[in-house]
């Protein structure tokens, strides 16, 4: 399709083009100058905002410098005594509760896994209604958007507290809390991927007489699925971290134990648990990265 402006440009192509070059160049310079002014303004606003926020939040350089040695001392205190001669014995003393901790870490990963699965299902159910190009009408659209917004805005820890109150201590509260938050976040991300599918791209399905659900199934889902999978795996990694904190309020996983040893100043255990947690998170990251590449690569080859 050729727009009228393009047409008038081609019809004047016979005339000397010096005018056109000068005109476009002048306009371009104007736009660039405007853009530069805009970025400068933005930079100033950002700098002021950071300073004001830092002041209000009592973030001070002095405090930071004063606190550093204390932080260092705390870290040092948590360090285990390991020597080369008695490495095995030292190690087993440091990791004295290894079995329990690993069990708790497995719980943590499982909480994240179940929560991610439930959250993805919820997000998938709502994301099409929350996309402005696919929603049946604006009432459904706004209802879906607001629902996802609320789910995403309430922090997982707050959900976890509520659910511990309702369902008692344990993993169930953690799973529900993370699932709801995940649904809010992924529902929003999914709907944004949906919105990148243009109407023109869907016309082949619409013009054949397909109904809304069919247009989504045949025109949208095949296009957005790799993006959905990628975000889901990323979210799983994030949820493993969330699941390790959620125990702070009694919602299951390694967090409960970590909270306990921190509060009781059992220094060696703090470093042992953190080390195991870091290894777990790294393993999950590597696994999900590998999966992501396999699935998305496979999707392209299919």
């Amino acid at each position, binding site marked *: 399709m050729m727009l009228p402006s393009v047409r008038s440009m081609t019809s004047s192509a016979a005339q000397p083009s010096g005018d056109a070059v000068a005109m476009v160049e002048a306009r371009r310079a104007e736009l660039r100058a405007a853009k530069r002014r805009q970025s400068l303004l933005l930079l100033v606003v950002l700098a002021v905002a950071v300073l004001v926020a830092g002041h209000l939040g009592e973030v001070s350089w002095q405090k930071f410098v004063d606190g550093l040695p204390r932080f260092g001392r705390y870290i040092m205190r948590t360090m285990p005594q390991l020597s080369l001669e008695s490495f095995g014995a030292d190690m087993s003393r440091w990791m004295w509760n290894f079995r329990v901790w690993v069990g708790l870490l497995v719980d943590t990963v499982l909480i994240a896994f179940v929560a991610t699965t439930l959250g993805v299902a919820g997000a998938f159910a709502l994301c099409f209604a929350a996309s402005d190009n696919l929603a049946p009408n604006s009432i459904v659209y706004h209802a879906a958007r607001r629902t996802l917004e609320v789910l995403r805005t309430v922090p997982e820890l707050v959900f976890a507290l509520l659910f511990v109150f309702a369902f008692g201590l344990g993993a169930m509260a953690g799973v529900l809390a993370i699932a709801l938050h995940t649904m809010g976040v992924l529902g929003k991300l999914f709907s944004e991927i949906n919105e990148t599918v243009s109407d023109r791209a869907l016309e*082949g*399905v619409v*013009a*054949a007489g397909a*109904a809304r659900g*069919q247009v989504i199934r045949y025109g949208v889902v*095949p296009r957005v699925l790799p993006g959905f999978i990628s975000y889901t795996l990323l979210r799983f990694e994030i949820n493993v971290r969330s699941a390790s904190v959620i125990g702070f309020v009694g919602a299951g996983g390694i967090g409960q134990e970590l909270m306990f040893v921190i509060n009781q100043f059992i220094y060696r255990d703090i470093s042992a648990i953190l080390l195991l947690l870091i290894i777990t998170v790294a393993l999950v990251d590597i696994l999900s990265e590998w999966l992501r590449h396999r699935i998305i690569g496979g*999707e392209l080859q299919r």
Partner: protein
Amino acid sequence: MLEIEGLTRKFGDTIALDAVSLRIAPGEFVGVIGRSGAGKSTLLRLINRLVEPSAGRIVFDGADVTAKRGGALRDWRRQAAMIFQQFALVDQLSVLENVLVGRLALTPRWRTWTLQFKAEDRALAIEALDRLDMAQHALKRADELSGGQQQRVAIARALVQEPRLILADEPVASLDPRSTAAVMGALKRINAEDGLPVLCNLHHIDLARDYCTRIIGVRRGQLVFDGPVEALDDAAIRSIYDQ
């Protein structure tokens, strides 16, 4: 019989189509020619109801198409099969699945969610592909095909819609000469064998002369020529293409 009366479409201040009236009988192969921006695509998109008219009426076999809503509208779209310049296939689906999109309006919705169709539907789709010499590519992904092949898949999709009318919007504008011959030949064959009326936007007058029985000329949204292909002389061409 397709009857169009006073069909008009405005986009803001632009009048893309200006009170066009015409009738198309079964079996006709009508070429629509005109400069870029004349309103050719708008005409076809109005007929399929991808675009809503600002004024005027479309009537098919006595039924008012412009008044259709919901299920009736979707069934009309199925009957007025559309073929696009850029093919409008779903790249990520297989060729067969893309053709089966043409069966969606004829299949209960609950069945379609899993991408599974009845064996009869699949057979129909494969036969349509075979008619276009594309059956051997049925299980490839749509984006693995060349442009000419993709357009033939789009024609197969149109065929399984069990259409009453074929609307082709510059179906060969992005194709090389050999693919052009294959695609136009396929449209011509379907027109002759099935007696389906074809309304085809074309960029090249030579193509219009080779394949069409009747020519419609559009200029700035208005119908300025309508006659048998033999009547398309230099004067007529000038009246269509001159500013």
